[in-house]
């Protein structure tokens, strides 16, 4: 204990006597790690297996419109078309069709603009939402005006836990809330939607058509090639038999995984994220190194003294690094804390520009991801921003270091 105190006191003293430097160090680290945390978490939603995207590599998306080989639209596909089509597909687990409609819903006596998803029963099997209250639609509920809402949406209109059983009106129908699902990032499948009702009540207003989005879920061990063959064969057959199209375009058929990558840039996304990470890390690291060297003189003379009294080069290196590590850890912790309000701010700003649903960028942090990515990055950050000045310092002879602090 006594030894630890003697070890850490000069570090703390040095921090307190270079408040501007220490402040910059903490603040710089904080901002860096806010952005890194958000960037990595969002990237994880896109490329990783977060909620509702858990089966993205075996969920295949079908186009809403059948096109011929010249990409000319031939026929919009409604749910009975998809049923016919799927009769010829083999080996899948289940599929879902749904249609999106923008509408005005009446809650608590007032009207709000929201998007509603008219879904079949299998929707909840294909997209794996987590129910925090109630349950997915039963066969009976599929015939009744029931509604499932997202957590955020429920929170906005009703007191905590009081959403179930509440009534919402739109398009001349009164719906009763039977379930609440946990929020997912609006980047994930279904994450931009807050309201789900059975397809039976779809009046096809305002779109005026009955074209549906369809997703097919395949079993776990099936290869992507096999899935693709199963679905494209069925698609082609349907085109030939029911639409007189010799060769339908199957370009738009892809797994959700491929779709996400296409939408957000594929390999470019990962390269871009990598590049941004490097820039995000390098700029503060360079700044901290330069500032740290400008502030080194008192510290250097102390390190010189410690070396004269018997500290090894390694111990001296660790001593300088320790100061930096303290600041970086402080900054990282601050960064994590700051991530929540900044995400909240992004959500608020995002919902001003969108009336589809009550959306969120990151409903919660993925701590595993945090520990395997941000934490090592933090150590790297410290090793570079603290280690480089430390290494440069201890290369001097002890005598030079002692002089480094003489006034």
């Amino acid at each position, binding site marked *: 204990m006594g030894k630890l105190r003697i070890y850490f006191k*000069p570090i703390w003293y040095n921090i307190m006597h270079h408040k501007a430097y220490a402040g910059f160090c903490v603040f710089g680290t904080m901002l860096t790690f806010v952005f890194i945390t958000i960037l990595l978490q969002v990237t994880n939603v896109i490329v990783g297996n977060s909620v509702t995207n858990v089966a993205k590599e075996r969920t295949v998306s079908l186009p809403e419109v059948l096109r011929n080989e010249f990409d000319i639209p031939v026929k919009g596909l409604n749910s009975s078309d998809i049923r016919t089509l799927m009769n010829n597909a083999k080996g899948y687990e289940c599929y879902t069709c749904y249609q999106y409609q923008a509408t005005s819903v009446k809650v608590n006596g007032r009207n709000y603009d929201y998007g509603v998803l008219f879904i079949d029963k299998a929707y909840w099997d294909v997209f794996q939402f987590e129910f925090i209250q109630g349950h997915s639609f039963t066969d009976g509920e599929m015939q009744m005006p029931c509604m499932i809402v997202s957590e955020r949406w429920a929170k906005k209109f009703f007191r905590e836990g009081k959403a179930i059983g509440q009534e919402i009106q739109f398009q001349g129908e009164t719906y009763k809330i039977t379930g609440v699902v946990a929020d997912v990032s609006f980047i994930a499948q279904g994450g931009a939607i807050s309201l789900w009702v059975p397809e039976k009540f779809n009046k096809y207003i305002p779109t005026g058509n009955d074209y549906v989005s369809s997703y097919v879920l395949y079993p776990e061990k099936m290869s992507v090639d096999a899935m693709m063959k199963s679905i494209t064969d069925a698609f082609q057959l349907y085109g030939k038999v029911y639409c007189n199209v010799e060769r339908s375009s199957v370009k738009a058929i892809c797994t959700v995984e491929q779709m996400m990558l296409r939408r957000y840039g594929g390999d470019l996304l990962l390269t871009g994220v990598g590049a941004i990470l490097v820039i995000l890390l390098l700029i503060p690291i360079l700044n901290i190194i330069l500032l740290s060297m400008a502030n080194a003189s008192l510290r250097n003379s102390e390190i010189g003294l410690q070396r004269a009294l018997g500290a090894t080069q390694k111990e001296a290196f660790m001593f300088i690094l320790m100061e930096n590590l303290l600041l970086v850890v402080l900054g990282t912790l601050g960064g994590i804390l700051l991530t929540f309000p900044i995400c909240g701010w992004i959500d608020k700003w995002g919902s001003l520009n969108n009336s589809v649903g009550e959306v969120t960028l990151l409903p919660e942090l993925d701590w595993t991801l945090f520990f395997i990515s941000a934490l090592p990055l933090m150590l790297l950050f410290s090793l570079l921003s603290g280690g480089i000045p430390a290494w440069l310092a201890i290369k001097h002879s002890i005598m030079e270091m002692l002089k480094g602090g003489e006034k």
Partner: protein
Amino acid sequence: MITLENINKTFYTKEVETRALENINLTVEKGEFVAIMGPSGCGKSTMLNIMGLLDKPTDGWVIIDDVRADLLYDKDMARIRNQKLGFIFQSFHLIPSLNVLDNVLLPMLYRRGSSHSENKKRALEILEKVGLTHRLKHFPSQLSGGQCQRVAIARALIGEPKVILADEPTGNLDSKMGAEIMDILIRLNREGTTIVMVTHDEKLAQETGRILRLFDGKLVL
């Protein structure tokens, strides 16, 4: 105890080349009290630093207790500095954030396996020897120059070194304080500690056992 063999030291800076020491051969025997004198810039500090393994000679080598220091790893050199040598500097070099007691205890941070409570007991004994028992909780900024130097002496003594290397230990003090410090050093020498001291003060030098004179980087006999 300490032998310098064919020591040369040249400082290379941008375009200037300074030969600080030329062909120094010297042995300090166990129990000696040696004073190093000479005009400013003649290389006294450089020589003392090389003796204390704080700097490396350009040529030649230092032998401490029959071991050639230039052949040692950093870790072993650090151990020699910690266990066999004690340093006293003109500008004290106390750590401002640590109080008197903690400053004295600092070298024991680098002695593996030493017990903090025993170190503390020793520190208190030594502080009594240098007459600072009533200033244990003071910080360096609250002490006079003479008191600071006595803390530095206590710090040099805590590790029970065989040799004390002192670079102008009285240089920043008035003559009365200087004499007090000198008394402490003489007492230590009588108790068996080898002392090498750089000084400008002819009177103090006369109280030591041997005077070495440096001129322009060379020893003059």
